[in-house]
């Protein structure tokens, strides 16, 4: 299957070249850059680009953003306090990745995953039951407890989870993952697997999917039902 437009079949993407510049490219890309004048020229042009003095402007923008966020936070504090009472916390340290695992309700400080559903302009916490619709976007917030790394996988194909996100987290600190994932119209459920670990671990799905999880790793599965009906009004509850 062709996965690249026919007009540019020979060069790596700019994303791959940018990753090469940051030292995160595959050996194939490195070999290509070595032998390709055009790609080498692009990489060299990046090396020759001096950052503008605009870091001061960026810092000013960050400060402005922080002040705006504080104002919004105060305005919304009463709403947040009420919402916190209804917060459902899913997951439990050491739980096995079986689909039938009941959702766990617990207090802050435990290994936890919050799933937020954005539909139109409205973002709400998933209640563990309501279906999602094509076009909805999911975003996760985690409390990694004592773990320092989180990975999120989508189980679209049996036994072949696809990595959606991987990154470091600070143990004991709630962290909203920077990625959001759009729900497509395929299938009857979205299956997410959240893996917490101490450092990078090599997934052993054949064992993990049977619930055999080694020490230092926690694997939390979530099955989010999908509806094929048209999504309700975005102001409604997901």
């Amino acid at each position, binding site marked *: 299957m062709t996965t690249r437009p026919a007009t540019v079949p020979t060069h790596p993407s700019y994303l791959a070249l*940018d990753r090469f510049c*940051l030292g995160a490219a595959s050996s194939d890309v490195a070999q290509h850059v070595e032998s390709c004048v055009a790609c080498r020229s692009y990489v060299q042009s990046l090396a020759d680009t001096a950052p503008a003095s*605009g*870091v001061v402007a960026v*810092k000013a923008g*960050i400060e402005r*953003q922080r002040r705006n966020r504080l104002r919004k936070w105060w305005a919304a504090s009463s709403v947040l306090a009420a919402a916190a009472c209804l917060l459902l916390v899913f997951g439990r340290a050491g739980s096995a990745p079986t689909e039938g695992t009941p959702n766990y309700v617990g207090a802050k400080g435990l290994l936890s995953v919050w799933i937020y559903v954005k539909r139109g302009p409205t973002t709400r916490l998933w209640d563990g039951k309501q279906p999602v619709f094509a076009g909805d976007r999911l975003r996760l917030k985690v409390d990694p407890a004592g773990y320092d790394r989180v990975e999120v996988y989508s189980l679209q194909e049996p036994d072949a989870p696809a990595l959606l996100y*991987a990154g470091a987290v*600070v143990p004991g600190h709630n962290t909203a993952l920077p990625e959001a994932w759009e729900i497509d119209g*395929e299938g009857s459920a979205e299956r997410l697997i959240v893996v917490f670990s101490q450092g990078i671990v090599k997934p052993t799905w054949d064992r993990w999917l049977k619930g055999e999880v080694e020490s230092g790793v926690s694997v939390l599965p979530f099955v989010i039902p999908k509806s094929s009906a048209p999504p309700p009004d975005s102001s409604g509850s997901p």
Partner: protein
Amino acid sequence: MPPLDGDSFEDCYRKVFPLVLAKCRRMLRGDADAMDVTQEVFVRLWKHRELVEEPAALTAWLYRASTRLVIDRARQRKLSQESLQHLGFVLEDAGSVDAEARFASRRQLRSVLSECPEAELEAAILSRLDRLTHPEIAEVVGVAERTVRRLLGRFDERMVALQETA
């Protein structure tokens, strides 16, 4: 979230700035527009500063954020005419249409920018302008590869239909 002091942020800025500016220049003709969007991307990056230690996740986020910012600004008419026109050429070349054909009018370009779903515009820019493969687009946008194929197919159909009605 780990604290990121001023020096660390400046290090990140120096390292990543050229990549973001190059990406913005591919989308926008006006250098002022490209610089403006680049600055805004870094302001937003601060909220996601944990990405700084993960080059793959960082670059995926930068591509997504900069593309969406440009689409937003194009829709809100916050870009120069030069940049808008350049983006229009990029988009029409993205479709399976005669490369010689051009938007019949500015109104037609505005129509594409305002009516085409953001997800389609985003996939088209990442695919045809940034040369991303379908798996790369899926990673950047956060959707399945089959969704990427569907988005690009719909975009092509939209562009063909647009040219036919011109």
